[in-house]
């Protein structure tokens, strides 16, 4: 009886594993396909029927081409620069505003809170044409600042930080002020370090979102030296040949920073995402 129960349990586990496997593989398949394809050669791509695995995993030719055919190293630098700029400014501005909403009482508090959160109701994609006009009039096309500036106001980041600040122990602030701390010292030296998990999570989210941005960076840059990685990899297809293997290598190279970052901080990200969803 007991043995039978054990066998049934094992069979159910095996069935569960099989079902999950069948569902998970198609989800991951495109990523694996890009990875495997990036090691194939142009010759292998012209062979029929199309194969999945490369003849050799030591063929890094496509990756070399990604960096020589277009100035990909420069694109990586541009992506890193704009992403760092957005992360830094967005989080700093959110921290400042969140502090005011968490600790001060003032007349327009509710109104301003709604005004800032209201930006989440206006999808950025519908605003790009007018923003392009603004940014070009400011003379910021083809600059890192031009790419970054439209993403500086982070309403959801501000909201999350305010929640975290409100939950921080009240006594912390009283003690700090007793010791002669001002608002700025308390905020940056005590409060932000205490809320570090939230700040790091928000930084990661901002990083992945900005690194993967496409439409706006495409619009606001037209010089070859100022393109970002996401825009750059779409230019790997040659005029006369499709370069499938180089395109896939480019896609893989562009995936590396966000995916690595994501896997390292996944648990933290999951936890904060749940909180966000519940509070919405």
């Amino acid at each position, binding site marked *: 009886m007991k043995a039978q129960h054990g066998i049934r349990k094992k069979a159910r586990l095996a069935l569960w594993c099989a079902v999950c496997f069948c569902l998970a593989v198609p989800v991951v398949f495109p990523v694996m396909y890009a990875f495997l394809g990036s090691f194939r050669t142009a010759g292998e791509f012209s062979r029929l029927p199309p194969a999945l695995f490369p003849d050799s995993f030591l063929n890094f030719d496509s990756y070399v081409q990604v960096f020589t055919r277009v100035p990909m190293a420069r694109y990586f630098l541009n992506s890193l620069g704009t992403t760092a700029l957005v992360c830094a400014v967005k989080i700093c501005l959110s921290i400042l505003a969140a502090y005011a909403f968490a600790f001060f009482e003032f007349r327009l508090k509710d109104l301003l809170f709604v005004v800032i959160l209201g930006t989440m109701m206006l*999808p950025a994609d519908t*605003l790009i044409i007018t923003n392009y006009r603004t940014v070009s009039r400011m003379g910021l096309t083809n600059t890192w600042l031009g790419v970054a500036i439209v993403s500086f106001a982070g309403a959801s980041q501000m909201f999350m930080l305010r929640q975290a600040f409100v939950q921080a122990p009240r006594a912390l602030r009283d003690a700090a002020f007793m010791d002669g701390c001002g*608002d700025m010292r308390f905020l940056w030296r005590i409060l932000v370090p205490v809320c570090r998990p939230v700040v790091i999570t928000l930084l990661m989210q901002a990083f992945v979102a900005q690194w993967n941005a496409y439409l706006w960076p495409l619009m606001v840059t037209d010089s070859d030296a100022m393109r970002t990685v996401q825009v750059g990899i779409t230019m790997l297809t040659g005029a006369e040949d499709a370069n499938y293997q180089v395109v*896939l290598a480019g896609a*893989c190279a562009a995936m590396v920073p966000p995916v690595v970052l994501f896997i390292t901080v996944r648990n933290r990200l999951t936890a904060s*995402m749940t909180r966000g969803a519940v509070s919405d």
Partner: protein
Amino acid sequence: MFAGDAGMQTVTAKKDNGKTSMARAGRLIKPYLFILPILVFAAGFVYYPFFKTFLYSFSTVNVMGEITSFTGLDNYRYLFSRREFGTAVSNTLRLTAMNVPLTMFFTLLLGRLLKEKRFLGGLFETMIAATMAVSMGSAALTFRVMLNPTVGWINSALGLGVRWYEDRNTALYGILLLTVWMGIGFNFLLFLAAFRNVDRDVTDQARLDGAGPVRVFLSVELPLVSPTLLYAVCTNTILALMTSGPIMILTRGGPSWSTTTLIYLMYTTGYGSGNYAMAACVAAVTFLLTLAFTLAGLWADGKRGDAR
């Protein structure tokens, strides 16, 4: 910058015994100085373009982007008479109507399946969740090769003769496949967390009362994760209405307008042809669509709250 000054001000003000009118004024405006920087960017790059877009849509605008005259609803009348606008609306709505249910069904299923932490569960979890960090650019390029009718692996492996992005009858489904795939990682994580938050006692009790696993899922677990479901439906609807990147990379709106969506139309008329007024009309229509869906979501949320 400003906020820093404000902080310094209060520190010095406190030294002067904090009772001078300077200090009081400082304390009064201090909160606003903290909020000012984010407000400046919210105003300049969200609210200003928003109002400007509506203003443009009621005006004649030259190629420099200067308003030359007020025309009322003429732009809209012209836009509604254009065939490509109707096509774009229909494509966008079709894409959204297919994308949201498909994504919800698939990610709910995945989230529920991987709820219990079991052997290999963590591995599946990471594999699926990590796809959310893959950029739209990388994904679109991969799908272009993968679904290529001659060199792509999918057609030959599944024995299909579909021409995907090259055929006007299938291109939209190719885009659908890509956009659904891009949404899986994020929504899966949402639902996974939601299912894990469901109290075990509740499901165990339902089991003891004789309910089968399907019944437990439909009548106990699904209602309990419905706040997350509602949130996911709303965010995904808005994202789907904004579909444009994959179209720019894969099909450029074609073949023969079959994948032209609203935002893509806005981009090509505004940035491509310099017709700012028309682009503003398209943006305004798209915005009103998203607003309608957002309000519907809030209304549904309110109803759910009343029912409880």
